[in-house]
């Protein structure tokens, strides 16, 4: 345990020092790694720990992004104040979807598909209702001051992403230690057995999706503040749902560091294909290749390596 603690401390120290020595381009990549790890962790808490696989997690991401952006642009809120409001909205959406779906007894694939449909409903609504400005999307006025949650130097947005990622790791770590987390794992492994043991399965599942929704919404606000623009297909598109699911599954669903490892792997594959495209002219449209690789990894991991890449790390010391 102490060796693990030491590794974590070293990793954190490296992550803190990294932007002080890395060029801006690499700082941005690091920021994306931690951001994707964070939203991946929000998926992992529901999909990995509690086994409630969602195909439409982007519904929370978009809810967060739109809530803070609308409060800011239309009602003049400060983005730092809009941030908790966005999390609240994400939590409420999570609660409502969970309440409806789990009350109807949906499980497994059916739950995955209904989340996909909810995300689609939100995307279409964001495309159609006036207060989101429809397909035009919403621009946040650029005014690069920390009080506006906008920064001139990429290092600050990097540190915020790092902080989010660390907080999400701490939440996941707590889930491996407290009774709530233990109940979630019991539900994942065998829902009927968990119920027979006296666990209020419905309440626990609603709770975890509320938590997950609030976290994911926080990521939505972060994204909107980083790029200062959102539209319905960014905020509620299938791609983000898949990204969250992929990094968790590939890294290791239901493990603390799974989403972070998955995010590092996804980014590495992305950068390698981008580099290939720049070096070999014949491969200039090679960008989709990274997702091909990732799709194959998903199939292999689901079939052969249920703990994802984390499983590779973990098995060695145990059998050594």
């Amino acid at each position: 345990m102490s060796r693990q603690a030491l590794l974590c401390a070293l990793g954190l120290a490296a992550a803190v020092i990294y932007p002080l020595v890395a060029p801006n381009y690499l700082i941005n990549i690091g920021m994306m790694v931690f951001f994707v790890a964070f939203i991946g962790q929000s998926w992992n808490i529901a999909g990995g720990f509690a086994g409630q696989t969602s195909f439409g997690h982007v519904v929370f991401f978009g809810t967060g992004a739109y809530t803070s952006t609308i409060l800011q642009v239309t009602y003049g809120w400060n983005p730092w104040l809009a941030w908790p409001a966005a999390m609240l909205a994400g939590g409420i959406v999570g609660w409502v979807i969970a309440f409806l779906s789990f009350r109807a007894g949906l499980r497994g694939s059916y739950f995955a598909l209904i989340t996909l449909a909810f995300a689609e409903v939100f995307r279409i609504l964001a495309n159609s209702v006036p207060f989101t400005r429809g397909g035009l999307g919403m621009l946040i006025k650029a005014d690069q001051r920390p009080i506006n949650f906008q920064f001139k130097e990429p290092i600050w947005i990097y540190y915020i992403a790092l902080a989010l990622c660390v907080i999400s790791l701490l939440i996941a770590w707590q889930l491996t230690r407290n009774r709530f987390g233990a109940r979630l794992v019991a539900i994942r492994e065998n829902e009927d057995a968990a119920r027979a043991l006296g666990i209020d399965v419905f309440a626990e599942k609603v709770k975890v999706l509320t938590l997950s929704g609030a976290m994911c919404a926080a990521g939505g606000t972060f994204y909107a503040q980083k790029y200062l623009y959102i539209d319905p297909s960014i905020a509620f598109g299938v791609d983000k749902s898949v990204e969250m699911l992929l990094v968790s599954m590939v890294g290791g669903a239901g493990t603390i560091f799974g989403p972070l490892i998955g995010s590092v792997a996804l980014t590495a594959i992305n950068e390698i294909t981008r580099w290939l495209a720049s070096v070999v002219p014949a491969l200039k449209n090679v960008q989709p290749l990274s997702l091909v690789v990732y799709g194959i990894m998903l199939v292999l991991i689901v079939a052969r390596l249920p703990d994802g890449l984390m499983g590779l790390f973990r098995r060695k010391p145990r059998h050594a």
Partner: protein
Amino acid sequence: MLDPQIIFAGVLNGLLAGGIYVLVAVGLTLIYGVLHIINFAHGSLLMLAMYAVFFLWRLIGIDPYVALPVVIAGAFVFGFVLYRLVIGRFSHGRDENILLITLGLSIVIDNVALLFFGGDTQTIDVPYAGSFVELGAAFLPLPKLISFGASLLICAILGLYMAKSDTGKAIRAVAKERQGARLVGIDVDNIFAISYGIGIACLGAAACLLMPSYYVTPTSGHAFVLVAFTIVVLGGMGSFIGAAVGGFIIGITEALGGLFLGEQLGQIGISLIFILILLLKPTGLFGSKA
């Protein structure tokens, strides 16, 4: 209030679109009914078949309707092999896992298509594309009318095949009770692969019927996947009659939604039906059990 004649035309167009949806959904419901897997790659495989039709036309000049038998046969073989090599090996276990595997497959297929075919929208330019048939106030595009008839004919042939042929009977036996089917000497694994192949062959047929009046891009699959799932859930997972009725209901819903709510908001009807059916009556209209 809209003119009843416009609504009538809308309903007719919806029925025509529904004809193709039936074919796509029948494939999906067959795979679910026999294998008990939710084939999330269904839309992506349809997209792939549409590209096959497109390239047959572009490179060799084969008319989509003439290509029908070739594409159906090719799609069957593709599905059969895909099941044998990938899906069959992994398809026993938690159902979310199988869903994730077919999701992985669809990611691979979509991006391979993007890699090789580029992101451009491709259409087939057939001489009869602009022909219309006048029916009262409605002008119905000839390709859609042909597709509608052909689609129903193919569904009828498939239904007959399932009811009368030995393979069809074996498929139904496996769908009902796979252990019992194994005991009476049916090669269950082979039936699984054949069923998956037939499901994909339906997509091949749908692709031929769609291309004269539709377009294809690597993301075309997305447009159909939720529609197909909605139809199957609405009709009842695994039910053929359900897929047929559901296809028409969804086709009309889509047409009327577009008419009353506009192009953007009109799409919401399908997703809402999907959610409401799952929440209120997960067995669908004709399903036996959840």
